């Protein structure tokens, strides 16, 4: 709000708020770690009527990765929106929208009832669309438009599901619902509606068509956010619903999701290899990585959920770093055509290192966070004897390696064309690198986030799997 009033100070204000939120998340983290899952009733109304906030290990982890990525993006943006060809008026709009998006994300991860989730989802969607449109070109505007329509469509499906669930059980609270739920036609219909709405927003394979255009045409910090967090938000809701509300013995749905996820990994990987522009390549890589998250559903075991969550966390960090690196390269050379990269490694060693490190995590090489996630998924697949999943996970890693090495290869070589270059603010390079390093470090400190996941865990009962 304040950032509308004080356009001159907006950057400073943005950074201050960013620091404040990070501190608040850290405090909440300490509280949850010490005392277990927390529930807070806003205005003292309590569960059936009022709005509750709820924090357990899952939401805490999401909040933490959110805080880290958002702090990174805030710092990056102070450099990014300084550029001469970004009109000042646009840059001023970035900060309030960005704070709005962040607030929506935080609220979403803390919500404890399904209608609140709908509202936060809409807030998130609207601010994300406005941020995509900030880029201002014809491409950006049309893809923002498409993104908006998709978002509204998904939300309406979700809301219809909420209506049915409320009619059947008379409550919106996730905990209360989970106690009363029982398989019945109404529940199946509600589940189908909510699932399809959320999958549309998460961009699982047949419904991914809107994602690459929207993510690639947005300004770099915005693409980073969209890929790292916004699609994860609808996945988070999906995971919550699936684990806590809907009957667990829905193995046919689970298999279907797994197959779609597998197709997404291949399709995204192959498409990424075919792209000639860096940001499109990274966007398709997001499609592929989202596929991994859905591989956990056919296995539905303790390790599988943890693996998927771990991939989610490391992907958030790594993909932010990648899009930032892409933004730096774009800024530096004025284009992101992969074939025309001209000695990027020599001119921008930090950016290239960031891209390579993030790539290691995306490919799933040890000791990165991506490796731990894939390892957990592999272990779960072998334990449950689903060999086709093992093959897919390994093939997906190879495809990722192929498209990342394609970029790195061109980054070392000289291009035939020469172009004008501009200096990139050093903090933009450093934030990309630091986030990439964080993605790697996530693998080294793996036991710690895994322990957080166990706090108030919705799937702890299935530990035997």
């Amino acid at each position, binding site marked *: 709000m304040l950032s509308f009033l004080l356009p001159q100070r907006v950057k400073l204000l943005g950074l201050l708020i960013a620091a404040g939120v990070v501190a608040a998340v850290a405090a909440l983290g300490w509280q949850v770690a010490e005392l277990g899952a927390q529930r807070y009733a806003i205005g003292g109304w309590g569960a059936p*009527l009022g709005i509750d906030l709820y924090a357990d290990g899952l939401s805490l982890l999401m909040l933490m990765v959110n805080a880290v990525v958002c702090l990174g993006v805030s710092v990056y943006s102070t450099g990014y929106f300084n550029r001469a060809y970004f009109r000042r008026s646009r840059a001023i709009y970035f900060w309030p929208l960005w704070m709005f998006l962040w607030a929506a994300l935080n609220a979403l991860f803390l919500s404890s009832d399904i*209608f609140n989730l709908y*509202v936060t989802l*809409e807030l998130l*969607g*609207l601010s994300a*669309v*406005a941020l995509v*449109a900030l880029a201002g*070109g*014809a491409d950006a*505007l*049309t893809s*923002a*438009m*498409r993104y*908006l*329509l998709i978002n*509204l*469509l998904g939300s*309406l499906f979700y*809301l*219809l599901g*909420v*209506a049915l669930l*409320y*009619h059947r059980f*008379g409550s*919106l609270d996730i905990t209360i619902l989970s106690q009363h739920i029982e398989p019945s036609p109404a529940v199946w219909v509600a589940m189908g509606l909510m699932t399809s709405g959320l999958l549309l927003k998460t961009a699982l394979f047949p419904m991914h*068509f809107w994602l690459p*255009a929207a993510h690639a045409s947005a300004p770099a910090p915005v693409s980073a956010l969209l890929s790292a967090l916004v699609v994860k938000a609808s996945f988070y809701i999906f995971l919550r619903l699936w684990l806590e509300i809907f009957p667990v013995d829905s193995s046919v749905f689970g298999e279907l999701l797994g197959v779609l996820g597998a197709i997404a990994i291949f399709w995204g990987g192959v*498409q990424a290899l075919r792209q000639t522009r860096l940001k499109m390549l990274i966007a398709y890589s997001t499609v592929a990585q989202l596929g991994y998250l859905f591989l956990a559903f056919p296995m539905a075991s303790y390790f599988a959920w943890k693996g998927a969550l771990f991939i989610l966390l490391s992907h958030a960090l790594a993909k932010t770093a990648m899009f930032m690196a892409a933004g730096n390269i774009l800024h530096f050379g004025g284009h992101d055509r992969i074939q025309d990269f001209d000695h990027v490694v020599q001119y921008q060693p930090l950016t290239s290192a960031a891209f390579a490190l993030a790539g290691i995590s995306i490919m799933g090489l040890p000791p990165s966070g991506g490796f731990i996630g894939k390892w957990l998924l592999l272990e779960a697949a072998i334990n449950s004897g689903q060999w086709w999943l093992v093959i897919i996970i390994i093939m997906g890693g190879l495809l990722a390696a192929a498209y990342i090495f394609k970029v790195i290869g061109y980054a070392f070589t000289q291009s035939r064309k020469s172009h004008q270059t501009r200096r990139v603010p050093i903090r933009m390079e450093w934030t990309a690198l630091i986030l990439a390093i964080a993605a790697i470090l996530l693998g080294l400190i793996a036991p710690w986030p895994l322990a957080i996941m166990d706090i108030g865990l919705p799937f702890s009962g299935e530990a035997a799997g």
Partner: protein
Amino acid sequence: MNTLYLYTIVGVGLFTLGLYALLIHSDLLRKILAINIMGSGVFLILVALAARTQGAVPDPVPHAMVITGIVVAVSATALALALVIRVRTKVGHANLPEQSLE
């Protein structure tokens, strides 16, 4: 009971109609209208289902949800219309380009 189901069925009908229109029209204004019709369908269902038992006072919570929903729908429509204007000035027409499903 009859009116309740009538409203619910009309709501589902509006939702389906809106979905159909959203998918087949390429004009952006029509698409936005279609989304709004879908939204009205959902709101109608919510309100209709709030009257759980015949004659009793209807459950207020779905009404609160509908009000919130309307607020969201209005702001979404405003944003969508603003975007349409921008698309029109930049691209020259208010259609989404055909997209190959790669």
